[in-house]
């Protein structure tokens, strides 16, 4: 069963065609600069070299037409007929409280999705545009929405209620939702496989350290807490996002610098985090390089990044009453030995110790990097959100018959 997985941004579409039976990604790629001059599709079949196509891609509908066309093309294609695409799985960032699992998309559902735009104004509109576009191009193919928030839906109220008037939760749905659900779910399931124990018996903490970063406490396979909240701004220090701050600071800066809402929002989302502290770059690799050359603020940015991770790991261990596996994934989680070492240093008191040699090894593979004596297993697991979307899409479509 071949499934087209789609992740739509404001001017981009990322896609993978996955054989959900063998779990092989037959092709992956993206369309960038949609609606602008120089729009380009980059396509990589699993068994042939990458290719680029540029054209007048003025909206998401045309973008998805291009994707389908190249999947069918003689030289770069991986299927022979459109009908081989059995289903389309869409990443949708926010499912609110309404969507606790992936769902088959129906006309009624589109209305409900639109009501969620208010909760994720930056992401959901583009996701919805992607769904509309795929329905136009592949009208008879079932479409499934897979939500970033769904994996966290079992978080208990004491973890998701904020310390503000309860009526605001009732009125506007202001609570913690959590994001990166498909990634946390995927790596926790892989961790159980590697540990050789059922996930239902394990206490796992997963650190997704991409350009957006979040951490989740997964007790017996259920996410009981996670660091991103009402929006993806809360929690860990990120590449350009502040993560946790004293909320009074925002009001204070807005008054002192006479900022409007948009400027305050951009300050916290785009000028903060690693980039804001280091003044060097938003990319951990550049910052590590600068720190190595003696840049004090670059070093400070890494220290803040690791220190906050460490605090979250210890607090989630307390929340679960123990910890069996700690997982690092995505960007810096998969690639930065320094971040992993900085985070896990001096945690022997809770039975967590890295093997410095294993940690330092650069690899694209799943691996255990804790010492033989460590009671907590520490793992690096490359994430695969698209595969989770493909699996869920297959499950939902088969259940619907």
């Amino acid at each position, binding site marked *: 069963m071949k499934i087209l997985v789609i992740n739509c941004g*404001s*001017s981009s579409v990322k896609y993978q065609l996955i054989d959900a039976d063998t779990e092989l990604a037959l092709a992956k790629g993206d369309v960038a600069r949609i*609606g*602008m*001059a120089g729009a380009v599709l980059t396509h990589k079949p699993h068994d042939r070299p990458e290719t680029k196509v540029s054209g007048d891609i003025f909206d998401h509908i045309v973008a998805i037409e291009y994707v389908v066309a190249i999947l069918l093309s003689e030289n770069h294609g991986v299927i022979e007929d459109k009908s081989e695409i059995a289903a389309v799985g869409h990443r949708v960032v926010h499912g609110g409280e309404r969507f606790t699992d992936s769902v088959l998309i129906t006309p009624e559902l589109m209305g409900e999705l639109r009501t969620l735009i208010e909760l994720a104004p930056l992401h959901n509109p583009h996701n919805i545009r992607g769904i509309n576009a795929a329905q136009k191009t592949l009208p008879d193919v079932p479409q499934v929405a897979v939500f970033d928030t769904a994996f966290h839906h079992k978080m208990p109220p004491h973890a998701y209620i904020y310390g503000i008037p309860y009526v605001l939760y009732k009125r506007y749905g202001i609570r913690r939702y959590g994001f990166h659900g498909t990634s946390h779910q995927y790596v926790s399931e892989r961790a159980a496989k590697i540990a050789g124990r059922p996930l239902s018996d394990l206490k796992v903490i997963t650190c997704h350290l991409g350009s957006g970063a979040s951490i989740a406490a997964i007790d017996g396979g259920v996410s009981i807490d996670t660091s991103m909240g009402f929006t993806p701004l809360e929690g860990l220090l990120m590449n*350009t996002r502040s993560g946790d701050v004293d909320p009074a600071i925002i009001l204070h800066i807005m008054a002192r*610098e006479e*900022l*409007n809402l*948009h*400027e*305050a929002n*951009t*300050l916290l989302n*785009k*000028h903060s985090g690693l980039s804001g502290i280091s003044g060097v770059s938003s990319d951990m690799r550049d910052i590590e390089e600068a720190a190595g050359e003696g840049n004090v603020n670059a070093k400070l940015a890494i220290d803040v990044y690791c220190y906050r991770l460490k605090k979250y790991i210890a607090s989630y261990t307390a929340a679960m009453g123990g910890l069996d596996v700690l997982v690092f994934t995505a960007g810096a989680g998969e690639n930065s030995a320094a971040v992993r070492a900085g985070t896990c240093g001096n945690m022997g008191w809770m039975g967590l110790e890295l093997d410095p040699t294993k940690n330092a090894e650069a690899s694209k593979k799943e691996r255990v990097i804790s010492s033989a004596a460590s009671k907590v297993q520490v793992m690096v697991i490359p994430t695969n959100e698209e595969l989770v979307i493909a699996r869920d899409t297959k499950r939902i479509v088969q259940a619907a018959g």
Partner: protein
Amino acid sequence: MATTRIIIIGAGVMGQGLAEAIATSGEEVTLTDKTTKLAERGVRGIAESIEREIHKWGLTPSDKRAILARIHPSADLSQAEEAEIVIECIPEDLEKKRDLFERLDSFCREEALLVTNTGTLSISELAEATHRPSKIIGMHFLNPVTKIPLVEIVKGLKTDEETFRKAVGLAELLNKEWITVNEYPGYVTTRIIVPLLNEAMHVLMEGVASADDIDRAMKLGFGFNVGPLALADMMGLDVVMSWMENLLAELSDHKYNPCPLLRKMVRAGHLGVKSGRGFFHYDKDGNRLKDESAKTGETGNKVS
């Protein structure tokens, strides 16, 4: 250079603001003026405006690169031939605007949206310079365009529904709230704000309160972001006076009679922010200087 869907004619303050707003929304735009030099100066002005916004945390350096890459300066008016939307932003001079629309009419696509960005002039009168008066519409953006969330969409007598819908589409692209205005002198915003500014000047001239106190009273008392005298300084006192005279001529109501203090200041060359002195004092970057005269209760009678 590729032809863009949207073209702006006139790279002054309004043209720059609009080009910046359009490029920020993700669209490509051509910014034209009489010479390449003028058009390029317009793009430099936009770059400076973006720099100020980066300084205020509103944009990032990578936003700047992306926005500027979408703006194409040009001295070639004929590029409007292929454009879907043509926006005129030249100075408020009816004759010049009429000439321009006559030329645009001769080579623009039949279905193109032709927009005039005027705060006071008659759309119907401009439209008559063309053979397609139903395709002409006014869109009154307020300065600074990137910051003010409002546009007045002004229908001339012959503007048709389709043209109006396209103008709404442009407003939505730029993320602006819009109001519909049936052409009438001063539209809504200018018609209402100008007498208010004029009244503040009377209050100052009559020695009721100092300039600073008048502004503070209106800011704190009614939630204005800017006091009326500071606002007049920002708009330019000569501009405010020409609006008053225009309203007076069109509507023949004495309430639009420019305050004598306003006339006196304009004659003395105290035009507000742009001349460094109006009701308050400004440095060359337009920042307001600490202005002791305003605090001590000096009234307009002593201004010049």
